[in-house]
């Protein structure tokens, strides 16, 4: 015996009291299949859940109570399912928007969990490679390049001697 739920259009949801089941129709343009799966999964401990696609753009969810259920209980299932569906859709949207941040945090957590390199790994590491070439001496510090000591030493030899001299590498 098919019964309407008070306040819910018959095309959206109705109950079959003989079978202790309720059917609700979901617009698949509003809710993704993943959201429907997520909401369905939370009900399989209380109901037998069955999905179907009666028409393009629609999904039909049948929630059959595992034990005999009243119309109020079935209405409760339908309401809870609708809420859970909305929560799943919202979670899916948040996850999609924050995927980059989630991946970055996960990567950092995994890298931290791996711990410092072992002695074997350090032994295998190739330290011989030069970091980079610097023919113009750009990466050198001022002290390395012009040398304070040299400047002080030559202070007494004349004003021109106090001027910084180029590094040996440049000569």
């Amino acid at each position, binding site marked *: 015996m098919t019964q309407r739920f008070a306040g819910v259009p018959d095309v959206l949801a109705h109950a079959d009291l003989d079978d202790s089941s309720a059917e609700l129709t979901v617009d698949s343009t509003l809710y993704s299949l*993943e959201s429907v*799966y997520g909401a369905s999964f939370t009900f399989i401990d209380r109901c037998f859940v*069955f999905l179907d696609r009666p028409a393009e753009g629609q999904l039909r969810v049948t929630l059959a109570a595992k034990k005999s259920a009243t119309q109020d209980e079935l209405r409760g299932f339908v309401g809870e399912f609708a809420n859970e569906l909305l929560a799943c859709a919202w979670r899916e949207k948040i996850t999609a928007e924050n995927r980059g941040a989630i991946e970055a945090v996960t990567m950092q957590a995994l890298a931290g969990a791996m711990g410092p390199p072992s002695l074997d790994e350090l032994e295998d590491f190739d330290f011989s490679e030069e970091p980079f070439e610097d023919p113009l001496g750009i990466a050198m510090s001022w002290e390395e390049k012009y040398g304070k000591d040299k400047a002080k030493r030559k202070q007494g030899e004349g004003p021109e001697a106090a001027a910084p001299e180029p590094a040996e590498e440049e000569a």
Partner: protein
Amino acid sequence: MRELRFHRDLYAGEQVDAALKVYERFGTFTTSEEGEHFVVRVESKSAARERRLAGELANYALGLTIRGRGAT
């Protein structure tokens, strides 16, 4: 006899087969394919047992399908 119609877009065929294997000792299943659906007819000792068997089979197939897709 109860009939379950698993839509191809919603249930993975191999997962429906896996669910059938799990429950085959509890009843008799007849399978066929009709258009977009895998059709399973469930027969058991009583109507109540058929309802439960069909429901458990549907839940199991749904759970395997969801797990296979990595949803939830």
